[in-house]
């Protein structure tokens, strides 16, 4: 568990990792964490201020904001993550193949990517949603369809620089299979690049899905989603700005945590970037001081 140890040594990465872990756990076990039913309407509690019963107050229908925030983790974070993983695996796999085999394989995959990337992302997603209909699943399908080409592109470029190196040549000469070389040798070196690109895409996707929900194309009405919560709070933006604060901050926190974690991952995955054995250095200093003392004596 070298990776785990490296992450633990990096305070910022460790903090981000715990934040993400807590958020994911809260989302997975939402019924346990949420104090109230997120869809329970109580008109007498409209725009109520925070109280002990409702820690973050109530929205325009008197629903518990905290509960809605916790239930909102599922579409806003977990499902976005699923869509991200699918597109990274798809795009990353094709990118690795294109970068490793080059030649015709590369040309074919990259031309397909060019076609996909020539459509503006938002418009294409809107078109896909228009065809399939509004709803979370369709938004996620649109994301996967739009994002894989971008990942394939970026990862191919990253792979190209390693695919020609001598250790790959050595493995080829020795008679290792192509699949094995890709998985065992190429994948680890391109993993830091994959981590960084996918984390930045994760932030963008959370914001986009919030954007679609904001437009009313994402998740359907009663269900909680952070973007939709922002949209609902928009009507009272000036009279009760704190209603925007909760979902807004939640988005900021998760996106920041993911970005910091990916920075930490990049360092933790690369042996060259790890400052080796800081403890040893600390031990060396007092011994040097002692030696000085001896000389004086």
């Amino acid at each position, binding site marked *: 568990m070298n990776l785990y140890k490296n992450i633990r040594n990096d305070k910022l990465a460790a903090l981000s990792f715990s934040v993400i872990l807590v958020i994911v756990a809260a989302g997975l076990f939402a019924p346990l964490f949420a104090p109230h039913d997120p869809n329970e309407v109580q008109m007498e509690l409209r725009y109520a201020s925070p109280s002990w019963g409702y820690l973050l107050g109530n929205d325009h229908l008197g629903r518990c904001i905290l509960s809605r925030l916790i239930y909102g983790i599922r579409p806003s974070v977990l499902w976005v993550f699923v869509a991200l993983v699918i597109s990274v695996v798809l795009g990353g796999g094709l990118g690795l193949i294109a970068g490793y085999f080059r030649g015709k394989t590369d040309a074919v995959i990259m031309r397909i990517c060019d076609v996909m990337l020539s459509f503006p992302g938002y418009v294409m997603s809107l078109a896909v949603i228009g065809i399939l209909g509004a709803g979370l699943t369709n938004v996620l399908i649109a994301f996967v369809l739009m994002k894989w080409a971008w990942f394939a592109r970026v990862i191919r470029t990253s792979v190209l620089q390693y695919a020609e190196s001598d*250790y790959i040549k050595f*493995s080829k*000469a020795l*008679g290792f299979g192509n699949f094995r070389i890709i998985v065992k*040798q190429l994948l680890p070196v391109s993993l830091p690049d994959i981590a960084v690109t996918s984390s930045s895409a994760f932030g963008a996707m959370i914001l986009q899905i919030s954007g679609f929900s904001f437009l009313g194309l994402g998740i359907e009405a009663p269900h909680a989603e952070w973007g939709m919560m922002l949209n609902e709070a928009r009507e009272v933006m000036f009279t009760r700005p704190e209603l925007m604060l909760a979902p807004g901050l939640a988005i900021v926190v998760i996106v920041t945590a993911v970005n910091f974690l990916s920075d930490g991952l990049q360092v933790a995955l690369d042996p*060259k970037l790890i400052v080796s054995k800081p403890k040893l250095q600390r031990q060396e200093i007092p011994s040097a001081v002692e030696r000085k003392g001896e000389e004086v004596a």
Partner: protein
Amino acid sequence: MLIVEGVEKSYKKSGIFSRERTRVLEDISFECKAGECLGIIGESGSGKSTLGRLLLGIEKPDRGTVSFEGRSITERRARRGGVSAVFQDYTSSLHPFYTVEQALLEPLKLTDMKLKDMRKKVDLLLTQVGLDAAYRKKYPHELSGGEAQRVCIARAVSTEPRWILLDEAVSSLDGSVQLQVLELLKNLREIYGMSYIFITHDIQAAAYICDRLILIRSGRIDEIVPIERLKDVQSAYARDLLRMMIT
């Protein structure tokens, strides 16, 4: 053992619509016998590294064949564990994320050795190339050039191949280290009885270790000489090379 017959290779000139091709190798034929050390000498751009890639079977010749013990070298199974290589650039020869131990274990996975035996073998290999077990946990960026090249050599001999391609294996090391590594290669050859194909531009290093030299010039074989008769080579190019070495 390794037979090269009428090999030709050309590459497309840059540009998608260009149909012109530059010919890199032309009509190369020679044979490397078991246990022999064969030097391939030529200046930069003479096509010797391309020849190296063809010999390793990671690229296919346009015409002609390279066969290894009767089978085409481009067949992956034919060279599995029987062929190995050491390259010039020791910084990119080792996987940056693998420790020395992992790098040495990797080729051993082609053999059907048990993990315990593999670890013993790693220790043996490290001592054979003049390093010790303390290097096992080091990463390539923590090694010096000579050490890294030694690890590469240990990795190359680990599967006990029948022949090893040494592509400018000592060229990027400095004088004294170069000699040490050449000495090491000589000793290893005695231990394992393998053949070497030693590609270099340095006729001195080649003369030190090889039994026979092939002189390559602009993609063609200029001359093949046994090392004893090196001083009475015929071709003008070889004479030039020798003269430069003496002065």
